[in-house]
């Protein structure tokens, strides 16, 4: 297939996934802000949400302070923010429109329909007390999209590039959501492992729809290292880094089989995957969770570049 087509499919999937993840990150922000903790004279929850979304630089160019209104506006719909939910949907649709011939009719309807509906939103839909409806809607649209990919796309290279986009993006965002916690300061009177800490970790779990999964697997109260283990190392948790890399390596293998050759992307993906399979959570906390996640995000970005170099240009 055309390299550009593969590239558009890859980014179509990435941006649909990113829209969903922005919604999830905003939701985590909500839950954290709902705790209403004041640290050093101000809230840090919305600041940490902005940081987790990877939007710190752009945000503070426009806004002096991370209020709920400003954060929601910037992450949900600001056209100047290429990763805002509305921008993501627009970019996804633009990529989809460029490769309509490679999409199933249902996929196109899912993408185009999202864009058409997004155009219909009014200012009041993004107010702090109503935006949750938009966030739910975004998750629904993204789930519809991935559902269409799974149920209507032919199982050929077009499908594989789409899936690569979804999982590389999802791995990135799970790592970022987990890192939100690093940036939310605990008030000095609160202890690590204390009541507030517990609530914050629960918020993270909920943001990635992992609350129930946690209780099924661990059957005990929420512990930070177990949350981290679930979201990093457990392949049975569908948004975990390990699960994403099971999909990524499998998909790259299918491509190598069909095309008869492997490249740097295969080596790098295998290396990252191996690390996720054979590292223990204790080791990660030893290095520092934040440091581990930062390094993971970097190598995942590198993987994106390698996939692009190998196939998409």
């Amino acid at each position, binding site marked *: 297939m*055309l390299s*550009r087509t593969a590239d558009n499919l890859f980014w179509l999937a990435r941006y649909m996934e990113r829209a969903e993840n922005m919604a999830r990150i905003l939701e985590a922000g909500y839950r954290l802000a709902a705790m209403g903790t004041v640290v050093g004279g101000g809230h840090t929850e919305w600041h940490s949400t902005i940081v987790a979304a990877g939007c710190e630089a752009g945000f503070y160019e426009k806004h002096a302070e991370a209020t709920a209104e400003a954060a929601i506006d910037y992450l949900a719909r600001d056209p100047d923010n290429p990763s805002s939910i509305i921008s993501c949907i627009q970019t996804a649709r*633009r990529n989809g429109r460029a*490769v309509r*011939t490679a999409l199933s009719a249902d996929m*196109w309807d899912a993408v185009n329909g999202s864009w058409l509906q997004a155009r219909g939103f009014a200012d009041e839909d993004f107010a702090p007390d109503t935006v949750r409806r938009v966030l739910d809607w975004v998750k629904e649209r993204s789930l519809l999209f991935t559902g269409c990919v799974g149920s209507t796309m032919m199982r050929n290279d077009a499908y594989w590039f789409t899936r690569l986009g979804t999982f590389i993006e999802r791995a990135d965002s799970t790592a970022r959501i987990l890192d939100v916690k690093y940036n939310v300061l605990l008030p000095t009177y609160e202890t690590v492992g204390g009541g507030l800490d517990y609530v914050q970790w629960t918020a993270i779990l909920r943001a990635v729809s992992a609350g129930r999964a946690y209780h099924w697997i661990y059957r005990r109260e929420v512990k930070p290292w177990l949350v981290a283990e679930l979201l990093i190392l457990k392949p049975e948790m569908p948004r975990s880094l390990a699960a994403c890399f099971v999909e990524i390596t499998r998909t790259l293998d299918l491509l190598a089989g069909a095309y008869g050759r492997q490249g740097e992307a295969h080596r790098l993906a295998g290396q990252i995957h191996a690390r996720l399979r054979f590292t223990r959570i204790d080791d990660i906390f030893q290095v520092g969770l934040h440091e581990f996640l930062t390094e993971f995000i970097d190598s995942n970005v590198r993987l994106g570049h390698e996939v692009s170099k190998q196939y998409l240009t």
Partner: protein
Amino acid sequence: MTAAFDEMGTEGVVRAPYRTIGDWLATTPPEVFAHKRREAEILFRRIGITFAVYGEGGDPERLIPFDIVPRVLGAGEWDFLARGLEQRARALNAFIHDVYNDRDILRAGKVPEALVLQNESYLPIMQGFSVPGRVYTHIAGIDVVRVTENEFYVLEDNCRTPSGVSYMLEGREVMMRLFPDLFARHRVQPVSRYPEALLETLLSVAPPACKGDPVAVLLTPGPYNSAYYEHSFLADEMGVELVEGPDLFVDDDIVYMRTTQGPKRVDVVYRRIDDSFLDPEAFRPDSALGVPGLMNAYRAGTVTLANAVGAGIADDKAVYIHVPEMVRFYLGEEPILKNVPTWSCAKADERAYVLEHLAELVVKDVHGSGGYGMLVGPHATKAECAAFADKIKAAPDRYIAQPTLALSTCPTFVEQGVAPRHVDLRPFVLVGRDKVTIVPGGLTRVALRDGSLVVNSSQGGGTKDTWVLEG
């Protein structure tokens, strides 16, 4: 101006092809039409057929209005038209080949030499080089208007990259979904074979260098082009890659596309990019849409471009005047379809006539298209006529004039209910190595404003499904 010919008939006398449509219009309540029209709009919106208007701003994803009352042609009417269209397309192709090679028609004095050789659309790069099958305009959109029961005129020939065929195809799809009963009561000739016929046409002109199965692609300027929907639709229906300039490259005079598995050779390019943007090394150096080196590959005979570079010389509005002569000269036949009488402002005596009769004439910029830069005399104010007269005097070569034809009307669903509106027809003529194919029908454009004669979608025109009945 006399009353226009109505294709359904007048005052209780319904013409044969419209018998069933007449009943249907008379017995269907207006709310049903209004409801069906909304449904049609939703369907078009969902399909994603939109049309951006050059330089107008506004919603870039605007829909062209679709009218749900079909335009109907009887089998006999169509056969006549089809014969005329095929004849015309053959003559146009022979003309283009001739002016880039032996120039017989110029030497015979049938077409003024300067009009061709000094024309902006005449591209010297095409001289002394023959394209596969001598086909230059593989896809011709020949715009036809009807004036009476038996009189059809060709308004213009579009020999470069005519668009609109996707509206013909999707319009039919939508109509079949909305009105299955109405189709059941007619025998309408299908149009759905068009993409297959197009592919067959393209593959038939593969270059001699091509061994084995030829690979065709559709080259588009990209998603920002107003006809992008059509490009992707046709590529999809034909099962060929939809490529943009950067997807192709030329190595050693051979054209390749970049794929996930490395370079793949391309034999036929159905290009929907204008000549001047095709190859920055041969034409506009600032073109980012084209493929550097494409013209060298073309001239080396390793790739076929459809339509051919330089085909625009045949659809120049001043060259148009001579098409009937081309039919006689190359085919030795009398033209089946008439030309609209045309005055050339380049000629002093004709210019004088035009300036004197501006209020009755339609004046067109020979380099214009899409209904831009034209004057419809009977609908213009005195001041508009005066301003246009100045333009003509300043650059007489740029303008031609034609009588204001009373374009035929068809019943159309508008605000006030069903009312006659003026229409034209763009059939699509496919010219391959050994045969000409015309899918029965075409794109009917309708001027939705009462009395308006301008059917261009950029000027508020709409489209209709065009039915050709079985004989």
